[in-house]
């Protein structure tokens, strides 16, 4: 009980840094428990986030290293930007939903491999980033396999798609990116693709977890403030009595 001053009437005026008094109202007891729960949840989420981040880093490193091994077997110039076109169709979409609690939830969805005839029936269209003659149709940002450089966390919200189906003359764009490097590719390149696929799913989970952590932190702040106000209100009341 530092900094407590006893005045002439034997009442103590309490300053901050005091532990909460033993005799509290039921309200402030409830809010303490709530605060504790929130803190614990925050810590758990943080720990999970760190774990997932660590595994994301190691998967990315593994993927790049497997690609180096593939270059060793196939030749340096056979696993390089020369092997892919500058335009490509994504195989994975990221959906962002706003939950009731106000948090954002990200999830990935992988397109099934379609054969050429069915592609025309696909009623989703993809936004092309960059100069082109047609206008923007909708706002899902796609992600792509193997050759992405950095994991991109940004998405945009998805609503019911207003669509004009994309007509592309060459329906062959949607294919397994592994085929860009040849049909008979070494195992190391397949391992690299696997690692990067896992990275994609993990990155959506991390993005969700990150927004959850931030919102928990906000809640924690509000609760602390609320409790602090409550506690000082109670004290003022007891001083006034």
């Amino acid at each position, binding site marked *: 009980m530092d900094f407590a001053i006893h005045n002439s009437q034997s009442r103590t005026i309490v300053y901050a840094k005091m532990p909460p008094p033993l005799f509290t109202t039921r309200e402030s007891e409830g809010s303490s428990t709530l605060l504790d729960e929130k803190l614990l949840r925050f810590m758990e989420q943080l720990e999970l986030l760190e774990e997932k981040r660590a595994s994301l880093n190691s998967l990315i490193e593994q993927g790049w*290293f497997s690609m180096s091994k593939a*270059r*060793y077997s196939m*030749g340096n110039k056979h696993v390089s930007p020369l092997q892919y*076109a500058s335009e490509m169709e994504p195989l994975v979409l990221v959906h962002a939903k706003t939950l009731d609690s106000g948090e954002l939830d990200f999830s990935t969805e992988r397109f099934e491999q379609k054969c050429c005839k069915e592609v025309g029936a696909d009623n989703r269209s993809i936004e092309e980033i960059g100069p082109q003659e047609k206008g923007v149709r909708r706002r899902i940002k796609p992600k792509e396999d193997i050759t992405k450089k950095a994991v991109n966390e940004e998405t945009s919200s998805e609503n019911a798609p207003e669509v004009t189906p994309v007509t592309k003359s060459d329906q062959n764009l949607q294919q397994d990116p592994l085929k860009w490097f040849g*049909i*008979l590719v070494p*195992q190391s390149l397949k391992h690299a693709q696997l690692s990067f696929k896992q990275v994609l799913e993990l990155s959506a989970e991390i993005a969700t977890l990150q927004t959850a952590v931030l919102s928990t932190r906000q809640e924690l702040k509000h609760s602390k403030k609320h409790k602090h106000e409550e506690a000082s209100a109670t004290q003022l009341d007891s001083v006034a009595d």
Partner: protein
Amino acid sequence: MAEISFNVDHGYLEGLVRGMKAGILTRADYHNLAQCDTLEDMKLHLQCTDYGKTLSSSEDDLTVSLVDSKLRENLVAEFSCLRSNALPPLSTFLDYITYSYMIDNVVMLITGALKQRDVAELLPRCHPLGAFDQMAAVGIARTPTELYSAVLVDTPLAQFFQDAVSESNLDEMEAEILRNKLFKAYLESFHSFCKNIGGATKDIMCPILEFEADRRAFIITVNSFGTDLSNAERSALYPACGRLHPEGLCLLGAAQDAAQVKDVADRYPAYKIIFEEPEPGSGFKTLEDRFFEQEVKLNTLAFLQQFHFGVFYSYIKLKEQESRNIVWIAECVTQRQKSKIHNYITIFQGTEQ
């Protein structure tokens, strides 16, 4: 009798190639390179070797890709020196070495054209040893027949096209099939050329080329699992000049998984070792790594005999392995994966130099 007359036409070049072979990096050089922390350090270490100022002369940022290109330029310069002074039949032999690079270039240009890459972008990345005049026109062809009749008919690759002509459109699968069919014809042709020369060249080169044929058969089989390549199509790609022909190739053609491939390998003592499970504790090596090791062993044997052409082939292949080693160390250094850095293959063990 070759010993008496060999030096008249080819003695100077054999001397030259043996001199160049003495500059191949040793175990100590690799050890120094593996200690480096950055590419700049590696550049400094390479200056003390036969590579000299190769890397320092460029102004661009030092990347692994640049290191690879510079090492390749070095090899090409040495090869051109040898080729420009060669007389037949050594000149034909050296030309045979270049055909494998030509095949790779043709396929790279075809797949680049499929991806709408500009020819001007692709040409500098092609292997200089495989350069030929009609390269720029390769991307225009739509089918292998068109490729042959319009572009490659006047090139040395024309002779390898007997089985490879077809009317199907050149997509990724067809390009891969074309590559392997051309290579099969090339390998068989090279093998019979060496056999005809006879003597020490035949004794050294034929085992090396047979190993190459068998290696391709194994690698094609293992990599084809899980792809759209059918067994019949796959069997047509196996070169027939190796030790696996004919029984082993039949069995490989029917294999459905890695265990069956290992079964086939177990029937041949040389390949049984390659497919064996490694002892626990030793670093994990891929199948390709083990084939590379065996290739290096065979190639080093070439220098134990004199008065034959095998030394030229072996020198080129060993220098390529050296490039692969240096690039591997460079990748490990840039990606900070020092644990795997010792996966390179030392070329001359001990004091064989």
